[in-house]
């Protein structure tokens, strides 16, 4: 099993460092795709923090998720500039193209649609993120082409 990073490996690295909570959650989500109940309890135990607090942090930030998601996570910015410049039309296009609603995952497990707070690219609003990649200046007709890169 060499080469596969486990939750325990991550926690060993940060043992006794409650200040590293957010880094730990990022690393766990990177290897597991989401933050499971078991992982949250393990983190609380390792850092001697209340589990409610770890869960609170995991649910506060929109880049963390406590539910399993598709292989590609599409995040639509829900901040005001994107909204004003047509985020709703982008959402409609995404929902139509993927056949799912916001917050859902496609049956084949390939895509999840969710909202995010501002991703800091208001200059190219409306914008979305697919995994780590930002797409800006969007119009609904650009969506099928963008998605085809991930199918």
């Amino acid at each position: 099993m060499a080469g596969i990073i486990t939750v325990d490996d991550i926690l060993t690295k940060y043992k006794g460092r409650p200040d590293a909570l957010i880094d730990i959650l990022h690393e766990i989500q990177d290897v597991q795709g989401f933050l499971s109940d078991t992982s949250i309890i393990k983190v609380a135990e390792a850092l001697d923090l209340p589990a409610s607090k770890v869960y609170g942090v995991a649910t506060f930030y929109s880049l963390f998720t406590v539910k399993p998601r598709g292989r590609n996570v599409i995040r639509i910015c829900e901040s005001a500039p994107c909204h004003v410049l047509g985020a709703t039309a982008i959402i409609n296009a995404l929902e139509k193209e993927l056949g799912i609603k916001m917050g859902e995952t496609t049956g084949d497990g390939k895509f999840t649609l969710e909202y995010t707070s501002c991703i800091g690219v208001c200059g190219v609003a409306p914008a979305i993120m697919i995994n780590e990649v930002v797409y800006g200046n969007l119009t609904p007709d650009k969506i099928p082409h963008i998605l085809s890169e991930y199918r």
Partner: protein
Amino acid sequence: MVTLTIDGRKVQVEKGTTILDAAKRIGIDIPTLCYHPDLEARAVCRVCVVEIEGQKLLQPACAYPVSEGMVVRTNTQAVRQARRMAVELLLAKHPQDCLQCIRNQNCELQALAERLGIREVRFERRLRGLPEDHSTPSIVREPDKCILCRRCVETCQNVQGVGVLFPAGRGADTVVTPVFGNDLADVSCALCGQCILACPVGAISERDDTERVWEALADPSKHVVVQTAPAIRATIGEEMGMEPGTLVTGKLVAALRRLGFDKVMDTDFTADLTIIEEGNELLERIKEGGVLPMITSCSPGWIKFGEHYYPDLLPHISTCKSPQQMFGALVKTYYAQKAGIDPANIFSVSLMPCTAKKFEAERPEMRSSGYQDVDAVLTSRELGRMLREAGIRFDDLPEEEHDDPMGISTGAGAIFGATGGVMEAALRTVYEVATGSELGDLEFEQVRGLDGIKEAEVNLNGLTVRVAVAHGLGNAKKILEMLRAGKANYHFIEIMCCPGGCVGGGGQPIPSTMEIKGKRGRALYLADRNMPYRKSHENPAIKQIYAEFLEKPLGERSHQLLHTHYTSRSKY
């Protein structure tokens, strides 16, 4: 010192004072909501905003420190508008079922809406429809009523050091909840109810058992016996509109008789009994090399906390049941026998300062009499409701005495309700039992008062007995961590779950600030001073119950009825 101007008047206060406190000095009461005098200010509700000259934005008075030359205005058009806006936004998300709410007329949001003259809410009502939590016998959560002030979170995390409540989610979707949105029954909650005292609204409350007690009182086949916890006599007056710290023992007894209880007896009696059993247990542990330090076991919130978070330390906890449960076990055995009543027909009610007592009464091991030993637990607040519904006015009541035989008690029993009281009561008895000589000064001042952790030493025939007292689970944790590390060099430790001890219990009247708790505690020490007997072992009813029934401390019957065991529980 810092000089500033508030509403055109100069005021001089110490550096570090908040605008809120500075304004109070000159008689200006800035409205607040998320602020609580015993908790760190979070400044999330924006109700206490004020104008500060030279600042563009309004600032929260509860968290903003004064500075030299500062000019503050607390009652301008902009301030009033901002406050109303903040409250209207809260009301738009609030059920507003005030008439049916458990906190009707004792709700900070309701009072604020009245004070700010809010007659309409300009926003669309949007309720979240969040599920209620009725999972425990002690605490009810109604998250739809929550205004996200975080006072319960601050209390649970930082005062009690438990941390089962925390905000999850963000913005408008935030919910204060146990981990994973679980119910309280599924997490390691001590059920202390301090969150209830902290809550400004009806989002967290006690499970109301008044209906079950009304039913028992109305049932002619039931012999309904009530026990009154030590702390109640110093707090129930507040439910009846009296000042904090008013001692109402005799009126309480009279009121309970008027409600229809067949016998009104006293938990103070079994508090005395606890001292005899626990004192002897301590001496036995010292003599026979048992597990030391021994820790008191009266406080069910502490017991449940210990079972979840310190299961390795359970052998340190005295095996004595709490006074409530000793009373419960005896009322359906000793008293039933003496009075010639079938225990099946006895309905045993306890009047407690505490929500965790409701859980304790329902523990499977609390059926030593063959029945559930305590059938219903009422908090001070619930009794207050019953008394008000019945129209009983304390002003017009005579002072009456508790019933025999389990109504006779001592000053030692009375002080159980204040932090340090169990320790002081125990020392009075342990000293005399161990040395055979009379204790000169009965008052152990070192263990009194509201310091978080108190220590004392007592010389017992050459053996220096070292004791410690902690109240509030946050303080208890400090001692328990020392104990785990092998650094708690004590013989005997008193732990009370709630800050201030039982006078600050989660079932006590709201508001329950540290200032109020201090007054209540002093009332109990006054009760002690006025009692004919002040040492548990001098209680004639205690001597009688050993002679007639129990035979001897730590004897077979005691083990069967008065002692218990603990259960290791999960931390998560």
